[in-house]
């Protein structure tokens, strides 16, 4: 995939691949191999039901943060479920690190839109769950402490998760997702319910953490601001049977991501224009 310059007219129009039911997986060139490879994925929820996703091709490099933008119902959550292995696509296949995804794995962890914390556990118990499942016995406490500090929840370790505010719950869910040290993080509108300040802070934190740990991240959102704040690249999904309608890099320096800089505003406006166009088209 050629990296495009960050100008509206540089939007790579993605030609829908021929609708042949199953898309043949082309022999892959080792050099072109990427960390996540979604090839020809299509999906419908029932045999004769409407097509929800059509011919999705998406490649993501290791360590990259990709924002998946699209309107409600465009199939963003469906695609994330398919990548995570929680759902089998009707067509096509997903490979992660060269290996075909057949079922969920703690190596690629998805964080759902709702925090879905277990209310009968403390914050620390929730965060340590992945380690428990992996039958780790040593260093569990230390690791839990570490991830909770990372999301600034160390002092809440022994609280019941129901006694946290919404933002704290989101952070706890995030801590739970990263505790088993996944390589790939799939985030489904993780901050949609938060007020603007909490949100801004978390966006910065997550980007920083991901970059520090070298995680690959797919971030589903319908907020252009959030995409610019967090992602290296934005992939736009058209509505209807969701298709990739645009794929563009986000070129903002780390410093500019934090402030209300000119560059940030420009980039946001550019992306919004793209999004509006596609939404209008979709």
């Amino acid at each position: 995939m050629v990296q495009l310059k960050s100008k509206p007219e540089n939007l790579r129009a993605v030609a829908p691949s021929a609708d042949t039911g199953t898309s043949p997986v082309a022999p892959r060139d080792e050099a072109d191999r990427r960390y996540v490879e979604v090839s020809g994925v299509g999906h419908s929820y029932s045999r004769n039901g409407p097509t929800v996703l059509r011919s999705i091709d998406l490649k993501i490099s290791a360590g990259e943060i990709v924002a998946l933008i699209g309107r409600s119902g465009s199939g963003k959550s469906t695609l994330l479920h398919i990548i995570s292995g929680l759902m089998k696509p009707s067509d096509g296949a997903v490979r992660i690190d060269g290996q075909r995804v057949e079922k969920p794995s703690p190596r690629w962890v998805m964080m759902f839109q709702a925090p879905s914390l277990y209310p009968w556990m403390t914050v620390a118990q929730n965060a340590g769950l992945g380690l428990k499942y992996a039958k780790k016995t040593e260093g569990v406490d230390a690791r839990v402490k570490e991830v909770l500090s990372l999301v600034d929840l160390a002092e809440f370790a022994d609280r019941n998760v129901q006694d946290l505010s919404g933002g704290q719950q989101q952070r706890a869910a995030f801590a739970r997702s990263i505790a088993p040290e996944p390589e790939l993080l799939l985030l489904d509108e993780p901050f949609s319910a938060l007020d603007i300040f909490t949100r801004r802070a978390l966006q910065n934190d997550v980007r920083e953490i991901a970059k520090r740990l070298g995680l690959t991240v797919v971030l589903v959102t319908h907020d252009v601001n959030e995409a610019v704040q967090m992602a290296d690249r934005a992939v736009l999904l058209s509505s209807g049977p969701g298709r990739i309608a645009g794929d563009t890099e986000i070129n903002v320096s780390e410093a500019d991501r934090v402030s209300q800089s000119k560059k940030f505003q420009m980039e946001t406006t550019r992306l919004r224009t793209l999004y509006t166009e596609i939404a209008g088209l979709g």
Partner: protein
Amino acid sequence: MFAFSMFAPEPALSRLWDMLLSGEVWEMSIPSLYRVGLGLVFAIGIGVPVGIAIGRMVVLREVTNIPFQFLRMISPLSWMPIAVMAFATWDAAIIFLIAVAAVWPIMFATAAGLRRLDPAWLKVARNLGASPLHQLTTVILPAIATDILTGIRLALGVAWIVLVPAEYLGVTSGLGYAINDARDTLDYSRLAATVVVIGIIGFLLDYICLKAVQRLNWVRES
């Protein structure tokens, strides 16, 4: 009217006092508690796993619905002849009758709890690499613990209902036996006193369940 005025509170309570002092209350309660307890253990041992299975698997639920509803509706007391035939000891027959009556509320409450389970919780667990056993112990059981206990509370009520006629069968101890005995001898103050004992024990058992519900309940009441 003759003996029947003995149902009045005064003779009943003074009789209860005598029975307490003589230790008779314990003598009659312990065998019944043993039978109800064991009956409930079997009911839980069968009801909870089957309830989880039919709650999780729609196909199984649909296949078993007809036979289960059918069996459920048959009064355990019509099983009596079969129980008498099939079990070597009277105690076993009584425990069987109690278990047969108590298994349904537990099974149904478990299945209903499972259907209310947030599917995201299971997805999260699978995603984090939970084995089926892990999913059972860390997600399913804690999530539906209060539902199971609600079922057990209802089952407890049913078990006591069945106890009295079940202790018709060849045993010489227990509260149901004491009630039958009192009825056979028209000793209504004793009958009323025994009823009070049953009420108190039932209430205490229910209270234990309620405390367990409160402990295991993670839903914040508004």
